[in-house]
């Protein structure tokens, strides 16, 4: 089937075609990217929510619980769960889905795992396009789960309507909470695993150190999940009412365009970096004839 035919079937809610189309987007297939034009006008309905946080805090488990909340209201959920590709061999273990596997047979849930494939921001280069496909497919809510590098992973908040940072009660002390980065760009701070000891202290510390709403939940026990979901929807409604949502959505498109252009630049740069001349310069470095700053200066003129 051609990408064009796939898009027509996506609009008719065909899951197999949606899945195949996302694969083509991951491969950055030029025809599929062109065919996205047919889906783009059908988007805008879905709420796009980013979930980020360090690895092991329970992002996937929290998502598993949130999916329950959304589907209770007979809404359609799409999930894009990103895991890292190996820098050594390019392989990946896509381990998020295993926490959400119980939703697999629910026809209102579509979960897709994606590897980063060396995307320079730790997301997937197909992420924005895959959200377009899920939106056109008819999802009411789209969750994006990041790989979880932690402190500086702000790209996700630029690509979603709202994003939350998930922490565990042992995230650190108040000086950790004071650092710039994620705690500034997300909309909601969630402390997962509040069934663990010392979680009250952690919540108090965070509340003291940040302007953002802070909420404690336990994915394991299912505590406070419906409160969290209500909070998300409240925030979304407020964004919509104040027109901040329109602003954010324009910025999402802008960020996506910038990201695509950056990737083109980067791939041109990677070609440049393979040039033999570079190795010759590096050899001179080894002989201590030049220092790295001199070489950088010389090469930068050739960029």
């Amino acid at each position, binding site marked *: 089937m051609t990408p064009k035919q796939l898009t027509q079937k996506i609009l008719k809610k065909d899951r*197999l075609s949606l*899945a195949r189309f996302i694969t083509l987007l991951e491969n950055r297939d030029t025809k599929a990217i062109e065919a996205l034009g047919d889906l783009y006008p059908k988007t805008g309905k879905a709420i796009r929510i980013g979930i980020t946080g360090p690895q092991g805090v329970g992002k996937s488990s929290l998502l598993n619980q949130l999916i329950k909340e959304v589907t209770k209201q007979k809404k359609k959920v799409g999930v894009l769960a990103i895991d890292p590709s*190996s820098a050594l061999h390019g392989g990946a*273990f896509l381990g998020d889905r295993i926490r959400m596997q119980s939703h*697999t047979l629910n026809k209102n849930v579509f979960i897709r795992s994606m590897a980063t494939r060396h995307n320079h921001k730790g997301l997937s280069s197909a992420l924005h396009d895959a959200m377009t496909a899920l939106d056109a497919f008819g999802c009411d809510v789209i969750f994006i789960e990041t790989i979880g590098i932690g402190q500086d992973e702000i790209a996700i908040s630029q690509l979603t309507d709202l994003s939350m940072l998930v922490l565990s009660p042992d995230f650190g002390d108040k000086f950790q909470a004071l650092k710039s980065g994620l705690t500034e760009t997300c909309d909601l701070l969630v402390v997962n695993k509040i069934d663990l000891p010392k979680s009250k202290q952690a919540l108090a510390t965070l509340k003291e150190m940040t302007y953002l709403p802070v909420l404690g939940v336990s994915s394991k026990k299912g505590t406070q999940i419906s409160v969290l979901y209500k909070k998300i929807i409240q925030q979304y409604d407020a964004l919509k009412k104040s027109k901040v949502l329109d602003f954010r959505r324009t910025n999402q498109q802008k960020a996506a365009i910038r990201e695509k252009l950056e990737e083109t630049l980067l791939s041109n740069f990677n070609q440049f970096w393979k040039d033999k001349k570079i190795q010759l310069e590096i050899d001179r470095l080894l002989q201590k004839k030049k220092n790295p700053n001199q070489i950088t200066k010389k090469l930068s003129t050739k960029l």
Partner: protein
Amino acid sequence: MQAKKIKALIAKPGLDGHDRGAIAVSQALRDAGMEVLYTGIRQTPQHIVETAIQEDVDVLGLSCLSGAHMSLFKEVTSLLKKNKVKGLLIFAGGIIPDDDIPKIKKMGIKQVFPPGSPLSEIVSFIQKSAQKK
């Protein structure tokens, strides 16, 4: 266009709870540069087939140690046909008697790897036979 990748789903149909083998195979495929998903234990054939659809995998590995492989594998392969999933390379592993292997291959499962199969053999089998989309 980016380089295509082989995407594999390792699945455990049925009720046995031991997944050391499934995890070892997942690890080997990952290290060979593939993108690997694992379903976790105690999955129904319906779960496995729906996962293969949503994730659009190129390869499906079924691991079964419970002895129920004949009926479970049959269910998986017929559900795949019913859902019009094409071009999927299927292989199996686990405690499977030699006599069952020809019957399993008739279901459309390309290869069976019994206990003791070298991981490198599984990897090269997939690299040779999988169709990348």
